[in-house]
């Protein structure tokens, strides 16, 4: 039996060893965490583990025992979205949306870790989200707007 925190709730799971965190989360309905590849190349599978960005496809569920996992499911409540998500919407930093949850988590982890992050910090954390039909400019703008004020522009 593995126990960990998932979006603030204690979870106990009896899972076959070898199961990835990605498969577990999607199986439980956390569809914001996407399959991009088995190799962590796309970043569409980004989650936060104890506040740090990681690839869910590159982690076995057994290794997260005792950890605190966050997905964007904890950010929005129905239509009531997080200011960072709102900033992405306002800036139009969304196309197919497949990778957007990963980008939102990347920016949020940066906001928590660093005071006054600059554009190069933003590009550094977004670099691992390589799934990019949204493009390269608007997510950076959306992030900078949010980081400057804590609100969308």
């Amino acid at each position: 039996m593995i126990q960990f925190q998932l979006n603030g709730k204690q979870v106990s799971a009896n899972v076959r060893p070898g199961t990835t965190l990605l498969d577990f989360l999607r199986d439980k309905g956390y569809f914001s965490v996407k399959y991009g590849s088995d190799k962590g190349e796309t970043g569409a599978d980004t989650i936060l583990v104890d506040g740090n960005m990681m690839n869910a496809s590159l982690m076995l569920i057994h290794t997260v025992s005792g950890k605190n996992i966050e997905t964007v499911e904890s950010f929005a409540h129905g239509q009531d979205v997080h200011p960072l998500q709102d900033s992405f919407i306002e800036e139009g930093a969304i196309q197919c949306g497949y990778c957007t949850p990963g980008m939102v988590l990347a920016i949020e982890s940066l906001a928590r870790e660093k005071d006054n992050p600059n554009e190069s910090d933003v590009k550094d954390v977004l670099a691992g989200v390589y799934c990019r039909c949204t493009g390269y400019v608007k997510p950076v703008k959306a992030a900078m707007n949010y980081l400057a004020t804590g609100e969308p522009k």
Partner: protein
Amino acid sequence: MKYFAPKSLEELKDLFLSNHDLNILAGGTDVLPRWQDNPSLKLDVLVDIKKIPELIGIKESETDIKIGALTTVQDLKKSDIIKKHFSSIYEATCQFAGVQIRHRATIAGNICNASPAGDLLPGLYVHNAVIQISGLKGERVVPIHQFITGVGKTILESDEIVVGIVIPKSSIKSLFYKLGLRQSMAISVVNFAIAYEIDENNNWKSLQIAAGSVAPTVIYLKTFTDALFSGSDVDESIQLVDDEISPIDDIRATASYRSKVIKNVLMHIIKEIYVR
């Protein structure tokens, strides 16, 4: 499949004693994709060594720096000690994959994966890093260039693990260069590190170059550096690099491109160092 997460080296050794075929998992960023690419692999016993605290962290002594085997690339990047003493290793961490992978990937994993393109390796080679190994037969210590023996090959026995990396402190300066097909999330087409000291008369006091992705392992470009050291002109001696490297064609680049680009960039950077 059985899963174990030993909490100490002692517990790990007990596992080595009671099981024959352990699959050791550190950060998993290389191992998991390999397992997923080969569904036929039999993985009976999985051992997650990331729960062994004694294998994590960076310690500084008067003469050297000891890096725990499971220290992540992100922790290396954030370490003031690494940045101060080993610029080439620090620079490699900045160009290493993306933040997600840097949070998982470990220094020993990058070494044991023994990829010719491993980005931490050239810096470790030019700073003369030494690998600390622990196993059922005891402990041993081996220089990194003797530890890695080929593509994906090391001298590590099946009942041994890497416990740490020791790098001597010195006044040597170093830098890292990586050519990838894009800025991040790229496997190096060519990479190298240069460690050097220049005396007050603008002569080399010491010089070491280690290059990756141009041979089955990272290699020292010794003939080239010897020529520079004995005062030869860079433009002439750069041709010696071709005798030392054995690049291949792969999906990222051709052998002939690798040969041309490493010579061009090396020449440029060596000249820049002279001017500094």
